[in-house]
Structures are given as C-alpha cells and as structure tokens.
C-alpha cells in the first residue's frame, strides 16, 4: 500500500499567521485573557529600565553633582527604584502563571482533540508504518509548541517590548547614538534569516539521523533472537555504530552552526559598545550629552543587544513550533474518510442481521483495484466462510463489512440500510471483527477481555472463556484471569493472544461476528473446539470467517470463494467441491495436508 491514506500532503502549507490563527481557534484557552497578560508583561518589562535610569540619575545628580558626590540627592529615587523592581517582579510572576495556565490548558485541548480525531482516520488501521508518526502528532509536536509558548514565545514578546522601550529611551538620551546602534544591527537582522534557515536545515538532518539511529537500535532489541540464531552480532553492531556516528556528526554539525549564528549577535553587541564609546565621547565633548547620559546609554545598549541576540535562537524555535503546530492541525483538518453519521445516522435494532454487497469495488487510494464489482447476500443467522489465496481480497471484504473502509463504488447494506448511514455506536455494537493479530493491551487477561464491555463482571468474563471451551487454558495461567500479558501481550504466545482476543469479541456479544484468520496460530484441537462453541452458541448470530484452514469452510452454511478480487464461486462446501474450480484446488491441497500422514 504505497499511497498514503488521507492526511494533507506537505507542500501547500499554510503560512505562519494562518497557522497561528487557526491554532488559537482550536485552543481557545490560549487566547483567553491574553490582553491582561500582555499588559502585565509590559509593566514587567518596564522594570528592566529601572536600573539604567537609576544609574544615569545617580551619576548625574549624585556622583557628579556640582558640589561633589551627594547621596541625599538620589536616596529617594533609589528607594523608589527598589519598590518599582519589586512591583515589576510580582507582575512577572503573575504573567508567568497566567501564561502557563493558558498555554497548557489550550494545548491539552488540542492534544485530546487530535487524539480523538486520529482514531477516526483510516491511516491507523491501514498503514501501520504511519502509526508512529501519528503518535508524535499528539506528543512531541504538541510539546514543541508548549516549549516555545512558555519560554521562547514569552521571551519573544518581552524582547520585542524591551527593544521598543530601549529604543525609545535611547532616543530620549541621544537620537544620534540611537541611529548608530540601529545602523550596526540592521546588517545582523538581514543575515538572521539565512542563518536561521541553515540552522533549521541542520536540525532537519539531525531529526532524520535520529530516526535512522532509533530504527537500527530497535533491531538489536526486537530482532534479538534472529541476531543470536544467525550469530550476526558483529554485523548488526556495525550497522548500529554507523547510524550512531552519523547522528553524532549531524548533531555536532548543527551545534557548530548554532554556535556561529549565535555568536554573530554577541560579537556585534561588543562592537556596538565600542562604537558608542567612541561616537558618544566625541558627541558628548561637543556638549550634546552628559557623562551620566553616555554611561546610561551604555547600559541601555546592553538592554537593546540582549533581545537581538535572543532573536536568532527564538526565531528558530518559533519555526519549529509553527511546523509542529501545522502538523497537528493538518491531522485535525484531515476529514475522517470513514465518518460517523452521528446523530443524523440510523440506529439499527438488535437481532439477526442480514448483509448485502451491491456492486462493491474497492481500490486503495492511488493503488490497484483489489475488489471488483462484488454482489453478495449474507442471510441472517448464516455462517459464511470466505476463502481464497493470500492477496485475493478476503481481508478487504472483511474491512468493508465492518466499515473500517468504505467501498470506492457500490454499497454495503445492513438490514436494508446503507452502512454509511448507520451510527457508529450502533454499528460497533452489532458488528465486531476479530483480526488475525489480536492486539492486547498492557493489562491483565481480565482487563483485556473487559475492554469490549467495561461494565462486564468477572463472572461474565469467566463465563465467556468457559463457553468458548477455554476455561482450562485460563486455569493453567500462573494467575488465572489476573495474569498480566505484558506490553502488546508479549508474555503470551501468538496462539494464546488469539484466545484472549476471541474471548474479548465474544464478550462484546455482537449480532455479526467477523473472524479474520482469528485462530491461525492456535492448535487444531483448540481451533475446532472454539469453532464448535461459536457455532453452538451463535445460532441467533450471523458469523463470517476468513480462513486458510478450510475446516471452517467445511462447517459453514455457505462458502464464498474470492480470487483476484472477484467472487468466483459460492455455495455450500459440498457443491463447491463437486464444482471443482478454484475451491476444488484449494480443498485438494487442504485435504492433502490433513491426510498425508
């Protein structure tokens, strides 16, 4: 499946402003009370000019007072400055707190919204390679925004304010020196963008190398037994070392660029001081500036150069945050390809279920057609087996039936209603599929079975296993139903995982049960036992099994044979055997396998 399902392609990316606007709309908490926060932030920033101003006043009115240094001339002023510092510090505290509350609240909303939406995207069930990237949409991408808003974003706002305030004050002291300072910094601003581009390019490299490295490292863990069995430790080690080194080199490369980019600002700051000293002295001697004003100006230059230095780094963070935000929003904006009609949809009453496929075709987006014009009728209470070779389209049939995907053309009709018009809550209650890889959560056996119905009692779960003929197996577990299955059920065997998945679906008690190779890793005796239990207990239920073990087909009311995306044969097992054709061939090899001992 090469074509990526859904999710807007990169390229036609929305701009920074559009992203921010859209992002704030998605997280209303973030902009709530923003005006008050900004006003307080302005006051807090005002605190930064207190010291330079106090320095100037002290020098001019205190230290270099006409009748010699005099403390009393400035003592009131210094006390006032101290009070102002305390007030502005309190403002800073309030600003920080408001900012953290607003941004964390907004981002939690975004995170949760995106999580919920991802579950509606078919990317998740059709393209396992992209699941990891979906996880980072709701984790690291949101974290990037949060980091930026709380450190970089605030810094950016405060820096801009500080730059403005510093410039205004510098203008008061000396318009000429202010012009000189700006003249020195304009060239820096013009190279900031290319530098920033170089830095983010380097980070992009690092990200890719990290991906390679993680993938190589994971082989040493996930593939441990294969590595051991073939004694390829040395080769695997070399492969890992190569990716570790590539990552290290890329990271160091990025670090060098960052260091150089950052130092440009530091260097210019230093040189600006020199220029101000030279020009200021010359200008002051001509009577345009007092000594105090020049020295205060030098403090203001510090106040001015700080924000410019931060600029390079913060703008880079901003770019990362916007990119992260854009990625999250792109997911949220991707229309659910298989959408829940919700309130407008129909609720189907419980009871025996009938299914009809009407001229159903399916092609993966940008891929070949895998199902051609299928017409099929599944009667209520019937047991149907779908058989065919790997890649014949069996699983596609099951996914259409359970509405994990929608047909490209034609429709699937349940009890006379187009599946697309059935409310999800009703659909999932009536139709349940057990996939081949019965995923288990890191919980106990009990917890996993209860996943189907959180209200189920322990007794009901026990009963499910008993009715499936699996009570013995549960008793044999070290802690029975309370045995932990480990991450993804790692501590059970593949066959045992399937048993738990079956009990889970059984507890859900659907009207139509779809089994997609659900017992492929189970021993024959257990499989037959389960099959019989399901048959006996599901008389009121419709059941569709997809299996390459044809025992299921032999027991079914009807067999549907799929070949190359077409339904080529259908009917009861015996008639199809007599017919020969594809089924005859499949059955012959099945029989050969069973009886050649």
């Amino acid at each position, binding site marked *: 499946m090469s074509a990526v399902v859904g999710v807007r392609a990169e390229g036609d990316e929305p701009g920074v402003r559009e992203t921010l606007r859209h992002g704030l709309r998605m997280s209303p908490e973030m902009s709530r009370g923003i005006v008050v926060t900004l006003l307080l932030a302005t006051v807090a920033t005002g605190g930064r000019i207190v010291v330079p101003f106090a320095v100037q006043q002290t020098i001019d009115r205190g230290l270099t007072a006409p009748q010699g240094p005099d403390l009393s001339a400035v003592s009131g002023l210094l006390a006032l400055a101290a009070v102002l510092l305390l007030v502005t510090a309190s403002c800073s505290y309030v600003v920080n707190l408001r900012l953290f509350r607003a941004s964390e609240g907004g981002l939690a909303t975004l995170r949760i919204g995106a999580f919920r939406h991802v579950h509606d995207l078919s990317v998740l069930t059709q393209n396992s390679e992209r699941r990891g990237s979906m996880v980072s949409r709701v984790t690291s991408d949101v974290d990037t925004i949060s980091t930026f808003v709380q450190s970089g974003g605030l810094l950016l706002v405060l820096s801009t304010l500080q730059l403005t305030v510093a410039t205004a004050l510098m203008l008061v002291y000396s318009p000429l020196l202010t012009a000189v300072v700006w003249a020195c910094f304009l060239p820096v601003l013009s190279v900031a963008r290319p530098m920033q581009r170089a830095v983010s390019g380097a980070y992009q490299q690092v990200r890719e190398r990290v991906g390679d490295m993680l993938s190589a490292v994971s082989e040493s863990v996930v593939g441990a037994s294969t590595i051991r069995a073939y004694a390829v430790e040395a080769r695997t080690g070399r492969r890992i070392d190569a990716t570790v080194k590539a990552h290290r080199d890329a990271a160091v490369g990025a670090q060098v660029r960052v260091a150089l980019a950052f*130092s440009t600002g530091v260097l210019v700051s230093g040189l600006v001081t020199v220029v101000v000293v030279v020009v200021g002295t010359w200008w002051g001697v001509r009577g345009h500036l007092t000594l105090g004003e020049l020295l205060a100006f030098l403090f203001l230059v510090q106040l001015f150069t700080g924000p410019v230095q931060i600029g390079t780094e913060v703008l880079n963070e901003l770019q990362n945050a916007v990119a992260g935000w854009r990625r999250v929003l792109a997911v949220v904006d991707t229309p659910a390809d298989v959408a829940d009609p919700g309130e407008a949809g129909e609720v189907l009453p419980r009871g025996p279920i009938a299914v009809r496929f009407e001229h159903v075709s399916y092609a993966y987006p940008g891929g070949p057609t895998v199902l051609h014009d299928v017409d099929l009728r599944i009667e209520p209470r019937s047991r149907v087996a779908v058989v065919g070779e790997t890649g014949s389209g069996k699983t596609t049939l099951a996914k259409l039936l359970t509405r994990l995907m929608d047909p490209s053309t034609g429709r699937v009709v349940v009890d006379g209603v187009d599946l697309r018009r059935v409310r999800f809550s009703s659909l999932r209650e009536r139709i349940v599929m057990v996939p081949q890889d019965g995923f288990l959560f890191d919980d106990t056996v009990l917890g996993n079975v209860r996943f189907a119905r959180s209200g189920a009692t322990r007794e009901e779960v026990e009963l499910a296993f008993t009715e499936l003929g699996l009570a013995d197996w549960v008793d044999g577990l070290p802690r029975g139903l309370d045995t932990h299955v480990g991450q993804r059920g790692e501590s059970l065997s593949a066959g045992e995982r399937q048993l738990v998945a079956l009990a889970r679906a059984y507890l859900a008690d659907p009207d139509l049960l779809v089994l997609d190779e659900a017992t492929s890793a189970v021993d024959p005796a257990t499989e037959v036992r389960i099959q019989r239990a399901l048959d006996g207990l599901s008389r009121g239920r419709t059941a569709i099994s997809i299996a390459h*073990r044809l025992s299921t087909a032999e027991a079914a009311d009807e067999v549907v044979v799929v070949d190359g995306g077409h339904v080529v044969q259908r009917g009861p097992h015996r008639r199809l055997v007599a017919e020969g054709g594809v089924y005859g061939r499949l059955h012959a090899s099945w029989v050969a396998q069973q009886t050649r001992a």
Partner: protein
Amino acid sequence: MPESSATAEPTDGGRSRTDLGPSPSSEPYTLRRGLFVLGQGIRHAPRMFTLAVAGSALYGVMTAGSAWALGRVTKEVITPSFRSGHVDGGDLAKGAGLLTLVAVLLVVGVVGRRVAAGVVVYDLGAIFRRRVTAQYLRLPLAWHSSHPTGQLLSNANADVEATFQVFAPLPMAIGVVVMLVVAAVAMLLADPVLALIGLCVFPAVFAINVVFQRRMSPRVTRAQRLRAEVSDVAHESFDGALVVKSLGREASETQRFTRSAYELRDANVEVGRTRGTFDPVIEAIPNLGTLAVLAVGTSRAAHGQASVADVVQVAYLFSLLAFPVRALGWVLGELPRSAVGWSRVAAVLQATGQLPFGDATLGGTGAAHLSVENVDYAHVDADGDLVPALVDVSLDVRPGSTVAVVGATGSGKSTLTALLVRLVDPDRGTVRIDGVDLTTLRAGEVALATALVPQQTFLFDDSVRGNITLGDPALTDDDDRRVWEALRLAQADGFVAALAHGLDTQVGERGATLSGGQRQRVALARALVRRPRLLVLDDATSAVDPQVEQAILAGLRDAGSDSTVVVVAYRKATIALADQVVFVEDGRVVDVGTHAELTGRRPGYRHIVDAYERDAALRAASEGEEVLR
C-alpha cells in the same frame, strides 16, 4: 544576555519513546551520585571537555574584562575628555582597541565553549549508545525476555541522552565560577566595601538557585514521567487501533488519554508556577544589588573613599553577572536527571549473565546428530512469576532424520526450538550436537551449524539480499546463485523476481513492505541458503497458503538429507515428512514414535492431529441424522 542552556536535540517523530521505564535503582538522588556521573563523562571525553572549559573560562574572564575595560576607558579617556572638553584621538583609539579586543576574545570563548560542549554531549551520547547496544547484542535472550522492549529502547535513547545533557551547561557553569572569582578580584581592587555587596549578592543568587532546583527537580521528573505516560497511552491506543475501532471503544480510549493529558497539563502548570516564582526573584536580586552599589557608592564617593569610575565599574559588573550565574543552577537542575538516567544506563552496562562459551568446535559435515538430555526450562512472566515451560525433556534425533514436534497451544514447543539452537540454555540438562554439549562450543559455532525459522519472523531494514545473506560474502558469489536457489526452495523466487528492484528491493522496517506470507518465505530462504546441518522450523509456514506450503514441503523433502530437521507442526502433511513424532504436553515429552504409533496409543495426540477430520466426520454424521429424520 540569556543563553539557552541546552544543546537542544530535536526528538524524533514518534518512534522514540520518551518512556523512562521503571527505574531499576530507586536509591534517592544524592549530590555524590550526580558528581559521579560528571566524573564518568569527563573521563570519557577529557580533551573536548577541557577545551570547552577553556573556552568558557576565556568567556568568563572576558565578561569581567569587558567591565574592567569599560571602567578603565571611562576613567582614563571618557571622564577626562568630558572634564576637559577635548578628545585625545590617540587615547580614544587605544581605548576602542582594548574594548574591541575584549569583545573578540569573548566571542572566541563563546564559540569555543558551545562547539566543544556540543561535541562532548554528542560524543558521550555516541559512546554510551554503542556500549548499551553492544550489551544488547551480547546479553543472553533470557535477559532480553525479562525486560520489556520499550524499556530497552529508552535505555539506549532517552536515558543516555538524559545522562549526558548536563554536559551542555557544565562548561558554562565552570566558566561562571572563574568569572565570579575574577569579578570578585576586580571589585576588591575597585573598592572593598562595594565588593562586599557583591560578596553578599552572588552567594544569595546561588543559594536561591539551589533551593529552586531542589523544588524544581521532583516536579520536572513528574512532568517527564507523565509525558512518557501520555506517549505510552497514545502508542498503545494507536497500535491497537483495529481493536479499538472494531469494538467501538474510541470514546473510552479518548477518556483514558484525556486523564493522562490533564495530569500532564497540571504537572506542567506546577512546573510553571515554580519557575514563575523563582525567575523574577533571581532577576530582581542582582538589580537590587546594583541599586545598593549605587547608594553605597555615592556615599563613599561623597566621602572621597571611591572614584566615580569604581562605582560605575562595579555596577556594570553586576548587570553582566546577573544572568550567567544561573548556569550554576542549570547544572544543579540537570544533575538529578543525569543521575537517574545513569542508573538506568548502568543497569544495562553492568548486567551480567552472558552465555558461557567454550572453545570446542564442531568438526563434522552433513546432517547433525541432535540429543537433548533431561532438560528443564522455566521463564519469568510479566508478573515476575517463574513459569516452567519444559520439564525433564529428552530427545535423540539421528543424523538426516526429520522429527515433528506436536503439541497444544502453549505446551512449550517454541521454547524447545529455542534451546536446540542455543538461544537460551536449559536450567538443567544438556543439549548436544554430534555429542558435543552446546555450552562448550565457542561463540558463533552453533549458528554455523544450525538455523531456526521462528513462528514470528523478523526482517532487518535492509534489501532482500541483505536479509538472506546477512552480509556473508560467500553467499553472493556466482550471481547470487545460492540465494536464488534458496528462494526457489522457499517458494519465494516468483514474488522476489517481481519486486521493483528484485533482490535489491529494500523491505522497510521489520519488512513492513512485504506481506506476512512473503516475510515468512524470505526468513525461510535465509535459513535454507546456509544449508544448515540442523534446521529447526517453528510453525514457519503459518502465514503461507496451503498450496504454497505443500510446494515448500515437497522441496524440502527432495532437497536431500544433508540436514537434520526438527519441525513444529500441526498438519498431517508436515508430520508425514517426519521419521519420528515427538508429542509434547504441558512442557513434557509424553511420547516419541511414528505417526502411526502415536495415533495408536496416545488419545491426546489423536485429539490434536485428527481434529479437523473428526470435526468433518461428526458434522457428516449429524447431517446424516438430520437427513434420516
């Protein structure tokens, strides 16, 4: 002049689990343990670290130097000029030259420190990632199976990163110490009384920093843990999407995620509250100090005890030092995280229990003679319980023969196959090939003679060829003849030839671009191409169509008897290939014999292998009854 503390490394898109896992050592954090980690790091990257510290020291000296230079220029050039109303061009040029020199050296210091500190962080990361993964490759599978996959991945990634991140701010902090010393001297030289204010303010800033970090680190750790939890919930939920969707559990999964997300939000706000309290305080203290310097300085100047320039210089030093002093705080803040990270990394590095190897070799060629004598094996499950998997198992497989292992789901068959190729060692008893105890063989010797195709195949992120040869050049000679031969035998030549790049096609991570049946056949070819003397197949054709499976089995039978074959099987056709059948029940070998013998005397065996036939017969009978009725 704020400077970001971290050589921020962007984290990867999703694959990295930030999970820090359960800590193997729960000893409380102590400064001693933190300092130990610093020692470890410095020992492994001494030169770059020294360079970073030198850069930082230069930066520190020059920062203080810039205040000193400005003071000197004020005293000797600016003030006289203002007083006399006349500028001496030569003096001003000298002053400007001095200031420029200081500025340039300062930048050299910054660049040197940043680059060298970055190299230290990434070098240490690389060194320890290599060591951790080398351990993964060395440690026995029993160790692997007792550690969750997610934890091992984060040990190699997030934990290594957390351990050495402290080296980003460390050189800066050391530079700050240098800077403080220089500044103290400069202040003392300018005016001892003003210096006294500095000697009060800077320790105060430092002390507040320490308190801040103490308050901060548990909150940050908690936020980190919750972030990992959010990531785990998302991972698990998206991995299980098919189950979530087909059972219609999206809403309850969203609730589960919401709980985690809100906990994280609250924890982050707590972190913010702490930071929001301390940041303004730490910023205000040096500012208040400056005001104190101005007041005291003016008073002292009034009494002729200090010059204007002295006061200006000390005040300027304060404004310069206020920010860098925080670097000390960054280091103290990172240390607990480092110590925790290190304890996890160290747990892997110190893990022992390597499979013991001897120096014996297997001289023979042709099919191997396999014997298993009184073997016990138990594994540890997710609850930490010891679960016996095999009990007193004995087997003797003659060279060139084929043995089928039959048993119910969970009876211990897969564990047995793992013992045969020495993926694990028995707790008791011996496994021998050609009479030689596997534990006495030298490393790599077992792999040369045997091949296992497991139930769940693993493919490397490599080409089809790479997955089959695993880098053995001998197998690619002669236009890949042997590779194609193996693929033919595994019934995989057809689909491989049809791939866009044939043998050079990349299969993706864990073979994601191939179907389950295709992956199994490539794994089979990987085993067959080596012409193993002992071939072990653990239900290795479960995802393959019956027809294809028939063809594979026929091929194996015709390929001759240079191999001894042990095959886990349910199907009679597979069993039919076997000279002998081993019947396993609850981890014990209950019987060995031909299929006919076992069918005759073991009802449990009949129950499994005849299940389908019996089922069909029962059904036919009941249909017959219905017809009669």
